[in-house]
């Protein structure tokens, strides 16, 4: 599984931290508030009960006082309920079960001790306060705690919402902070991809981020080193090729002199001269291709070009019929391309088709791409990944005893496509054969 990104992890850590903190605070404050509220409510209830008990106490004079009237005379609200237990009998303002009063409290009151206990009555929270009055009667008051519980529920809800918001805020802060913290790294990534894309002059500003000074300086050092080496390698390739040009010119001219006189020579000499002539020609092509590759990183010089015409001209320069060109409808007539390089890339694909693919059967000019179909056996999948590499020749070349290509043609095609911001690809042609494609996107 892919590991979550740094930003995600930092944000999650922030969120979890904030959640833990706010949950702790919420829990503690809820407990404190609810305890305080309950205690206050209890105290008020007890006070009221004592007051009522005093009223009852004064009314319970005589042998048979009217307990019902006495209870009725009490001034109680809707959320209070009064009971009197006297000589084993229960009195209430209205009919009601005595079972609401817990036995433990009854026993305690029977011993003459006042007390209070929290109970649930009809599923509602309530408080029972017991106050013994004279003649071993006990006055009970049941106070509903529904309002208080509702308040506490609301408080709990609010605190939970706050906790969630705080942790979301934590995540947001984490996201924001990492964005800022990672911004210099984004600059590094951008510079690195710039360098990978061929812009070797990309450097980081060493003063931009003091914390990352070491990273910046080693990055810039690496980029310097890389560009120096690349330039050196390229110059070396170009120098070697240039140095080869003069001796090759002599060879080419001398061998053509010899070649003209082959008929007058014995068979072995003539054959040897034929070999030399072929190899000199290949050597020339190799030097040209190497030089082309050595400077392939140069920026393209775009100019509007009629691609249909261009394709026909390249075909005719190879002695191939121009009507192989298929112009896909909807393709713009003119594209801005580096004409010389596109001509060369297409020419190389055609040469490749002739050499290894039994000749081109179609050249397609489509929107943003050129395609060359050949009639060969296609390219086995194991060779596809490397076919655009330098000095890679198709297996057909080996079978034919070396082939006459330089092994650089398709590498040049790929370089030219890349210089245009596109790429060279290879697919199967429906019905057999290979289909090479050069993508040449137009910069917006």
């Amino acid at each position, binding site marked *: 599984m892919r590991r979550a990104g740094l930003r995600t992890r930092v944000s999650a850590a922030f969120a979890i931290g904030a959640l833990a903190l706010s949950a702790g605070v919420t829990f503690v404050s809820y407990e404190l508030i609810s305890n305080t509220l309950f205690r206050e409510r209890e105290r008020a209830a007890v006070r009221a009960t004592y007051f009522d008990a005093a009223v009852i106490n004064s009314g319970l004079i005589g042998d048979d006082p009217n307990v019902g009237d006495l209870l009725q005379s009490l001034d109680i609200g809707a959320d209070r309920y009064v009971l009197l237990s006297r000589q084993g009998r229960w009195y209430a303002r209205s009919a009601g079960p005595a079972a609401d009063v817990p036995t433990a409290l009854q026993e305690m009151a029977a011993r003459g001790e006042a007390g209070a206990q929290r109970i649930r009555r009809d599923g509602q929270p309530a408080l029972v306060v017991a106050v013994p009055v004279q003649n071993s009667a006990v006055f009970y008051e049941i106070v509903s705690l529904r309002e208080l519980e509702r308040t506490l529920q609301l408080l709990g809800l609010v605190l939970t919402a706050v906790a969630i918001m705080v942790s979301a805020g934590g995540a947001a802060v984490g996201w924001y902070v990492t964005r800022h913290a990672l911004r210099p790294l984004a600059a590094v990534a951008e510079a690195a991809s710039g360098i990978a894309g061929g812009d070797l002059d990309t450097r980081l500003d060493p003063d931009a981020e003091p914390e990352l000074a070491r990273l910046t300086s080693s990055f810039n050092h690496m980029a310097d080193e890389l560009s120096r080496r690349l330039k050196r390698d390229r110059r070396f390739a170009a120098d070697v090729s*240039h140095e080869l*040009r*003069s*001796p*090759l*010119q*002599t*060879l*080419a*001219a*001398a061998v*053509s*002199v010899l070649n*003209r006189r082959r008929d007058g020579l014995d068979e072995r000499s003539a054959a040897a001269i034929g070999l030399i002539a072929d190899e000199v*020609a290949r050597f*020339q092509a190799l*030097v040209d291709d190497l*030089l082309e590759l050595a400077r392939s990183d140069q920026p393209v010089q775009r*100019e*509007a070009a009629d691609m249909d*015409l261009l394709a026909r*001209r*390249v075909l*005719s*320069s190879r002695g191939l019929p121009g009507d192989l060109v298929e112009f896909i409808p909807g393709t713009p007539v*003119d594209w801005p391309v580096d*004409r*010389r390089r596109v*001509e060369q890339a297409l*020419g190389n694909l055609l040469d490749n088709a002739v050499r290894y693919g039994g000749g081109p059967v179609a050249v397609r000019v489509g929107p943003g791409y050129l395609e060359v179909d050949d009639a060969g056996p296609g390219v086995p999948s194991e060779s596809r990944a490397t076919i655009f590499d330098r000095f890679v020749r198709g297996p057909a070349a080996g079978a034919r005893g070396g082939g006459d290509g330089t092994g650089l043609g398709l590498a040049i095609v790929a370089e030219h496509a890349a210089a245009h911001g596109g790429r060279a690809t290879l697919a199967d042609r429906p019905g057999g054969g290979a289909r090479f494609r050069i993508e040449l996107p137009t910069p917006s």
Partner: protein
Amino acid sequence: MSAVLLIEDDDRIRLSLAMALEDEGYQTHAVATAEEGLEMQRRQPADAVLVDLMLPGMDGFECIRQLRRTDDVPVIVVSARDDTHDIVAGLEAGADDYVVKPVAVKELAARLRALRRRGRTASATAPGVTTMTFGDLEIRPEAGEVRLHGEPVAVTRTEFRLLCELAEHAGQVLSRQQLLSRVWEYEIGDERLVDVHVGRLRHKIEDSAGKPKHLVTVRGLGYKLQP
């Protein structure tokens, strides 16, 4: 038999190219320096000149400029360097074409033949036309003459051929590719050949080369000669 002057300081290249050119039917005057080449051309004018750019003493660019003062002989630069700068400078000095070493002898011979076909009085496509007039500019294809304000203008054969091609299609835009194939006989070639020759022509047939009124550029399409 036509004669070719070969100016090349590398002994081996000079020797082998001279032999190969003789095989192709050219009488070859091979010399090692620009000074010798100019002297040779004065004494025994050749029909075409092949010149290397990097020469000891006077370099190839100067050699071409000096040749051009007196001569409209076709010049092909044969250079071991193919960087844009050298090639454009060689063409601006007055060369008609260029090839990069190592060049196949067949290719070189083909270039020479194409140059020869660019004859002095070249106008195969419009025979019988004696004078074409574009304001103060007069072109006489049959006589091989160009006149500006009635005064004869010295143009090279390639410049003349280019001018005739444009004049025959006066008012019509010709693309660089069309001009390359009609004047230089290149199927695929370097469009800078056209650009540099147009620039050289402008210096000769325009009152102000920076503000051409005859030979104008049509952006993105090519060039045209305006009536």
